[in-house]
């Protein structure tokens, strides 16, 4: 079973040279720490930055330079700043190659819910609805099971949707799963030491798998 950094590490393998990538808040942010060497990518932050760098050293933080999670950050050489309209313009026109975000629920047909729990939580969708409606390639990074022990991979979402039929891949502490074009989770890889049966028992949505499912390679 993977920890958060393990999930981030596995997702980092999906990133190809030359990608522009938008990382959501939470586990997705950690992905930046595991970009393979020799791979040049650019991180977009939807508050208006291409070329996000690491967090600043103490004393070098700048209140005017934050990411979409409101964290102090730095820029890398070759970065550019733009306004919110252009930022979502480039998102809608699919200039961002890969979006990685968290979720509360994902359904077997690729729907995602991650912005609202009626009566309990009303933080808002931020840029998530724009991202999932526009991105060519969206990977969800999340726990397979919620704190109440229930599967987050469902036949259909029970929470208000963020987007429909948009998720292509889910990476959890247990597995890597593709969403099949016709619906259903296809088990691609198991986390080290996790059995197919355990993954099946943890997945409420339709699950397809080959006879033999490889373990993830995290090196």
């Amino acid at each position, binding site marked *: 079973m993977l920890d958060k950094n393990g999930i981030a590490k596995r997702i980092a393998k999906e990133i190809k040279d030359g990608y522009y990538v938008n990382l959501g808040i939470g586990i997705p942010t950690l992905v930046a720490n595991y970009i393979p060497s020799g791979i040049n990518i650019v991180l977009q932050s939807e508050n208006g930055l291409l070329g996000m760098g690491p967090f600043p050293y103490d004393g070098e933080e700048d209140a*005017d330079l934050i990411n979409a999670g409101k964290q102090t950050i730095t820029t890398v050489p070759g970065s550019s700043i733009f306004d*919110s*309209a252009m930022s979502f313009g480039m998102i*809608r026109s699919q200039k961002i190659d890969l979006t990685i975000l968290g979720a509360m629920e994902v359904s077997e047909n690729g729907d995602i819910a991650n912005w609202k729990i009626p009566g309990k939580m009303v933080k808002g969708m931020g840029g998530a609805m724009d991202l999932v409606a526009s991105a060519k390639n969206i990977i969800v990074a999340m726990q397979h099971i919620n704190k109440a022990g229930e599967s987050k991979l469902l036949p259909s979402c029970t929470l*208000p949707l963020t987007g429909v039929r948009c998720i292509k891949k889910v990476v959890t502490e247990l597995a890597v799963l593709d969403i099949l074009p016709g619906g259903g989770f296809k088990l691609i890889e198991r986390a080290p030491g996790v059995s197919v049966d355990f993954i099946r028992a943890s997945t409420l949505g339709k699950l397809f798998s080959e006879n033999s499912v490889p373990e993830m390679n995290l090196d």
Partner: protein
Amino acid sequence: MINKVVSNVKVAIQDIKDGDTLMLGGFGLCGIPENCIAALVEKGVMKLTCISNNAGVDDFGIGLMLQKRQVKKMISSYVGENAEFERQLLSGELEVDLIPQGTLATRCMAAGYGMPAIFTPAGVGTEVAEGKEVRNFNGKDYLMEYAFNADFAIVKAWKGDTAGNLIYRSTSRNFNPVMAMAGKVTIAEVEILVEVGELDPDHIHTPGVYVHRIFQGSNYEKRIEQKTLSVKS
């Protein structure tokens, strides 16, 4: 050139009245018009509709206006990090219209660009789409969303000149330029106010034609919401 300078923040906001719709620039606490917010709190103008990506934190930004119950309705994309906000929302004191961040930005831009409506795929198939026109282009569904109509846009820039030209610094730019274009009246507060001719025409983000009033702000706190650091190894 046309001089847009007003003497201070009180003059700048003097005709904002109860029931007005305001756009307020900034993302989180970054690039917010601190001086105007403080003056609006002092003035005590009520029943405002505020269009702003966020609602500040409990004791800073728009949170200060929420504490004094000055806001009737918030139109935002993300309103976490604010307990008083959540209390007013759950008790029904505060109306909230949550909309996707790109939709928020583009509805501002639409107003500034004289486009009455725009199409966006954000929110198709979700509760955001309820009651909205859906239209298919090239096999993909889009929602039709209307340009905002705001009595005042209140923005914060880094530098400005007396003609109202504005330059923003780093990611404090965010919603400020699109809101500056969108207000019936646009009020800009700047950290540094200079004479015309001191800014490079090629590097102006908001041309002065969009700005009705500009003033030199003071005492910027520029509070950091999430101070995250790298550790020197």
